[in-house]
């Protein structure tokens, strides 16, 4: 049974991403006007994908924290532990870069990325896509494309590749944290 975070990722969050992908297909015509319009849609798609994935990661982190707090026997310690698990969380104020994700999930006393890679070595390549997505997200948000080759042109295929990578990572994150928290606490977290 996957986490609520993963279920939201593959339903509500996926739905909003599908809608913007359909918007791309709906842009008609063959002239330069269409190329400009589809570029804007691709930019919006990339930014939305980055934010939806960040939302998933934050949700999963919260769900993991709650699972840990739930097994603490002393009720008056629960708020203390909960607050410290999310205090100054990187995912709450920064992008879902591999570094920020690792920093937040490592708080659960897990070598997060090594565990993810050990579970599925193909996630090494997925990290690369995640970094690229975040670079583009920042470039689009700040309208400064120097860090992404100096060119604002972004193909739909690239965004689709990033989305596939995010989905793979989301699935592995869910599996790794579920297994880890179960072993740690003796209780299935979700």
């Amino acid at each position: 049974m996957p986490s609520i975070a993963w279920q939201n990722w593959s339903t509500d969050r996926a739905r909003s991403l599908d809608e913007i992908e359909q918007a791309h297909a709906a842009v008609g015509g063959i002239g330069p006007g269409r190329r400009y319009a589809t570029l804007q849609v691709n930019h919006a798609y990339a930014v939305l994908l980055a934010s939806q994935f960040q939302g998933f990661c934050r949700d999963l982190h919260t769900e993991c924290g709650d699972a840990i707090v739930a097994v603490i026997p002393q009720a008056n310690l629960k708020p203390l532990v909960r607050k410290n698990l999310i205090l100054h969380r990187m995912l709450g104020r920064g992008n879902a870069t591999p570094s920020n994700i690792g920093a937040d999930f490592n708080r659960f006393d897990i070598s997060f990325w090594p565990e993810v890679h050990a579970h599925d070595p193909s996630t090494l390549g997925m990290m690369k896509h995640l970094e690229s997505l975040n670079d583009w997200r920042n470039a689009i948000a700040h309208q400064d494309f120097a860090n992404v080759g100096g060119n604002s042109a972004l193909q739909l295929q690239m965004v689709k590749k990033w989305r596939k990578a995010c989905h793979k990572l989301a699935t592995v994150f869910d599996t790794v944290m579920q297994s880890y928290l179960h072993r740690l606490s003796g209780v299935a977290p979700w």
Partner: protein
Amino acid sequence: MPSTIQSEPKFHVGESVSFEFGLRQVRGKIVEDRGPLGVKGRRIYGVQLDMDPLESMFFELPEDELQSTTEADAPLKTGEIRDYLRNGGLLWMLGAGSDGSSPPVWLRRNTLGNVTHTFVEERGMVGGGPIPPRAESGDKIFTPLRQKVIRFVRSFGLSEKDAISVVDAIGTHP
């Protein structure tokens, strides 16, 4: 009347220690002796846990939760290096050169004993060659720099044949 008795520190800055991290025993380094700040005066240490190639983690742990260790990492095997590079490790490293920079990089073992890379020489086990700048193209290797990347891969101790197989497995573009 003091309620605690100060004892000599069991560990010193720079020393390797092992401790429990979740469900694993990991190795870190003492970076600070915080003194007898713990419950009943137990000594607290600042410990660094390397998470290469990402940022290291810093903990404060009590003395009785640390063990001294002289255990060294097992040498990296050719097959492990090849698999790491082929499965995304090479592209990840090449990504660090996408802005035109060319930092040296080494391979080492991570907290689980698997292969990872590091930009810190003192933590590296093999390598040290500079990353070929701008050598990645999407999720492939930039064709004009194929030979340069093969030489870079060989800097990790792989044969010419193994280096070519890694590069060919990833593919080149355009």
